């Protein structure tokens, strides 16, 4: 009795969690393609999902957005995925080390912009301006991809940044700029696009030297590998390129 308790417990937990996870569906589609995508792709992939479902009747696309490293951990830990689109190559490498990456291809690149409030009160025009006294700067922490890119451009420009905060993700950086707490923040150009009304992006030449590559792949062991390949083709094809460009990405 006592020994069986943990097992019964685990079963109960799993059942409860599974019950939470499965939403009630309409006429059940016969097939489902599961996509794990970096959060910065939310808008673009949302459009592509509709397109894909329209072209493949009876197929349901389920996209799970999240931080690239979280998603990579999920795949390594056995979560089923037919497509994995990451915001950087290092997280794809994590999956590759586990032998699950398949054949990743870069389908988009993203680069940094200086995000400033719409009225740009500190008159920021270049990376060097960020080091001026009295400028409250917020960046990503070096441990996360946007922070690594930030370090790279700063080094390239020979600018020593003194951020007021090193945030754990790019959305937090943007949030501080939107709230008016920061005079400037370093974020991706796609983030600036997404908040076009509240912030403005200032381009700077060094950004090109720290482009972020977005790889996409059909992980090995994908339950619906064929559908996954078709989704990747959609992303890399004309429709995908247009949607990506509209969101601020550059496409190879």
């Amino acid at each position: 009795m006592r020994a069986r308790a943990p097992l019964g417990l685990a079963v109960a937990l799993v059942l409860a969690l599974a019950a939470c996870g499965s939403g009630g569906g309409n006429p059940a589609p016969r097939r489902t393609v599961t996509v794990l995508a970096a959060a910065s792709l939310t808008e673009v992939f949302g459009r592509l999902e509709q397109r894909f479902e329209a072209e493949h009747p009876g197929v349901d696309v389920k996209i799970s957005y999240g931080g690239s490293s979280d998603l990579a951990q999920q795949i390594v830990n056995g979560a089923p995925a037919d497509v994995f689109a990451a915001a950087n190559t290092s997280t794809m490498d994590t999956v590759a080390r586990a032998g699950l990456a398949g054949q990743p291809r870069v389908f988009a690149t993203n680069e940094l912009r200086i995000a400033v409030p719409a009225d740009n009160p500190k008159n920021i025009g270049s990376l060097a301006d960020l080091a001026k006294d009295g400028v409250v700067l917020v960046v990503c922490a070096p441990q996360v991809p946007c922070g690594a890119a930030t370090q790279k451009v700063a080094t390239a420009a020979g600018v020593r940044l003194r951020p007021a905060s090193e945030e754990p993700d790019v959305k937090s950086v943007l949030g501080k700029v939107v709230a008016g707490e920061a005079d400037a923040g370093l974020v991706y150009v796609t983030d600036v696009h997404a908040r076009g009304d509240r912030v403005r992006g200032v381009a700077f030449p060094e950004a090109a030297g720290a482009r972020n590559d977005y790889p996409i792949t059909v992980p090995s062991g994908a339950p619906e590998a064929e559908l996954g390949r078709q989704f990747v083709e959609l992303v890399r094809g004309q429709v995908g390129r247009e949607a990506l460009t509209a969101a601020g990405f550059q496409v190879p």
Partner: protein
Amino acid sequence: MAAAPSSPGPLRPDRPSVPFGRGGADRHRTRAALPWPLWGPALAGLGLLVLPVLGLVARADWVRLPELVTSDAALTALGLSLRTAAASTALCLLLGGPLAVVLARGRPPGLRVLRSLVLLPLVLPPVVGGLALLYLLGRTGLVGRYLDLYLGVRVPFTTTAVVLAQTFVAMPFLVVSLEGALRTAGDRYETVAATLGARPWTVFWRVTVPLLLPGLGSAVVLAFARALGEFGATIAFAGSLAGQTRTLPLEIYLQRESDVDGAVALSLLLVAVAAVVVVLARPRAVEGAR
């Protein structure tokens, strides 16, 4: 010789004293049986609380653990966490203690509304609290704009902001548990003290506070533990900068992006610190105010 059967006995002490109190569990005592269907959910609930920590323990890289928890980043974050949690606990006590007394003993107008307001941070997502603080004390905030304009004081991105964020989320714990203790105790002792000629201030220090000390201990520990674990309000209001605003939970959140082993190790460190704190105060906190 037959004794008088109904003699009450003059030697009977008039109520024996019980120096050992009611704390000791009597192994001879039986209780009404528990309905058995409670055991299942109870065990499941316990499992949900305990098993994740076991998961953490199982996932930890025990070989690298010493090195991971003694890294510069970890020690800096731990030090900052302990300092800020201590400061915010002190602030909770300084502000929340009097608030609890006023709520329990005073008759402020709109008491019900006031009490709900005090509880608000308990039910709000902490990140909302952080945003709220930002829009109050931030550079463009309701009050913050004048602080900046007239005093040149900017709160966000400072250690002060961390302390304020922690105080915001932790104070309700202190106020609620203190107020509960005060209400349980009742005001009879204070009334007696007043009829003995003690002024309100004397009554407060010599009667209210000493009677509250046991409850105060658990209230303080709860507040400290909550402050120690604070994440959402801190990241939203104070940002994250090593040594200044990046407390242990923020460091864990950040490390999990790049070094999962490091994040797990720091999580265990936080679990250990929290466990020490809670165990220190467990008897009172669990048994509640007497």
